[in-house]
């Protein structure tokens, strides 16, 4: 498989993220079934589907945390199917987790600093004081400011609320300055007010970042997305613009079950 396989004909830029014929089984269970996906640069894509549709598995395949059985993944036209997960972060692929995955013993600032350190050669340095690496801590504070948490930078994560942790998740991904950002249910468990705040901060992300979001909360998510992909039993059932997917009878069938 070559890089050009993902690139459409002509001078149009290759999709920021593309997936071709991706399949993954856990034992006898096919969780991802021949999924094809192409997300244009700067696009806001929403992935919806009932529980167990294989949405998070698709994210895990894209970030390389699990390996696909067949199929290929392309990042800005380059085949990254065999690139280790950690190197995909260096290419510009960042994600948040549905189940909050943070460093509970550290402060909020240290959490975000670790996200920045992951992309810095400094992470191997055993001789300097990390707290004095001001280019890292300043950038971490800037990322916290983007999610409105800079006033809590010094607070231990254990003393933060669930809604604040959701925003730390997003700050860590944003701090890495990704080209493609994968958000796994960023609104899960948030109050109405918190949801509105998170929606505002997501809207403020500039267009040079491509965003793919998994979300159940249709009110905020539909407003955000330009194109929607509906997954069901690991397969893409419907894909199209917001209006097309909402109007499609198969969407109704999957969600209302008749």
């Amino acid at each position, binding site marked *: 498989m070559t890089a050009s396989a993902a690139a459409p004909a002509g001078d149009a830029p290759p999709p920021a993220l593309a997936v071709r014929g991706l399949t993954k089984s856990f034992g006898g269970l096919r969780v991802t079934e021949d999924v094809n996906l192409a997300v244009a640069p700067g696009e806001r894509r929403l992935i919806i589907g009932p529980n167990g549709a294989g949405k998070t598995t698709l994210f895990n395949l894209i970030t390389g945390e699990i390996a696909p059985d067949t199929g290929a993944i392309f990042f800005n036209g380059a085949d990254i199917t065999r690139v280790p997960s950690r190197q995909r972060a260096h290419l510009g692929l960042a994600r948040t987790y549905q189940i909050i995955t943070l460093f509970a013993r*550290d402060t909020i600032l240290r959490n975000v600093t670790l996200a920045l350190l992951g992309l810095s050669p400094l992470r191997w340095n055993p001789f300097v004081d990390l707290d004095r690496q001001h280019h890292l801590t300043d950038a971490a504070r800037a990322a916290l400011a983007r999610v409105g948490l800079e006033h809590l930078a010094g607070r231990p994560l254990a003393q933060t609320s669930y809604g604040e942790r959701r925003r730390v998740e997003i700050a860590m991904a944003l701090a890495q300055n990704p080209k493609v950002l994968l958000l796994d249910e960023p609104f899960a468990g948030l109050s109405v007010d918190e949801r509105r705040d998170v929606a505002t901060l997501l809207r403020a992300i500039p267009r040079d970042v491509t965003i793919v979001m998994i979300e159940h909360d249709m009110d905020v998510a539909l407003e955000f997305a330009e194109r929607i992909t509906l997954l069901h039993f690991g397969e893409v059932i419907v894909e199209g613009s917001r209006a097309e997917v909402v109007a499609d009878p198969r969407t109704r069938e999957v969600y209302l079950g008749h």
Partner: protein
Amino acid sequence: MRRITLRSVAITVAVLLLATLPLWIANTYYVNIASQILLFAVLALALNVLVGYGGLVSLGHAGLFAIAGYTAALLLEAGHGHLFSDLAAIVAVLIASAVFAVLALRATGIGFLMITLALGQIVWGLAYRWAGLTHGDNGVNVSGRPTVLGVSLAGAIPFYFATLVVFLVAVAAMALFVRSPFGASLRGTRDQPRRMNALGYNVWLIRFVAFLFSGFWTGVAGLLFIYYNQFISPQVAALQSSAEALLMVISGGSATLLGPIVGAAIVVIMKNVVSAYVERWNMALGIIFVLIITFMPEGLVPGSVRLWKAAWQRIRRRPATTAALEEQRP
């Protein structure tokens, strides 16, 4: 600021006490005990890198400790100089650490513990059974201590100072390591390995490098040990030695700098001093560990800090509540 100065005062006092110890402890027996505490503290600090900061519990460190000790002892016996023998011992322990790490880092948690235990037992088996090389149960004698910068370390007091210097360098290296970006990386792989991988860290390689760092200081402690005892036998590589090192780390408080040092002091004092008065000193040691784990499961040092803070807050809160009550009174 107050805490920082308090801390630096405490460190200065501790270093001054250690540096003048032979002046106020005239008995060389106790000076030797102090040397033992310091050299085992280096071992405990080394093990703490993996146990405390890496979340990787090793039960094979006595094997690495013994590999450094045997390499140097055998080379010295063969007539090589101290510098060559010691450098060769460090190279050997680094190679052994790399082999241990490659095999053991296939797993974490209990799997890692079992593999390191097995590797440690292999070293013990070789030391015990490969008599042609190691003289088996008879062990290897180390005929003399080196002379460093014109000072012979043959006496108890010069040896104590040499051990103190090595110990202080080890503590400084650990303090630097804990605050460094690499230390933060290692702790990150302990707390959230999956996230660390997604953030761009090479989790396996971070653990591997940490294992080498731990192995290096374990080797240094092994060298101090053979010069202290001037003898090494398979007992040094036995599972009990690995378990004792682990008890030092856990009882004192893993993932702290001071904890392993305190833990080393407890174990060495129990083994040497208390055993002179109490025949069943092993039982006394066991009781102490049970008490520590029951009342301070996080270890003696963090546990004491926690109790101290709780007591301090109670003292401070009492006048505050009285004042509040008085305010409410019309």
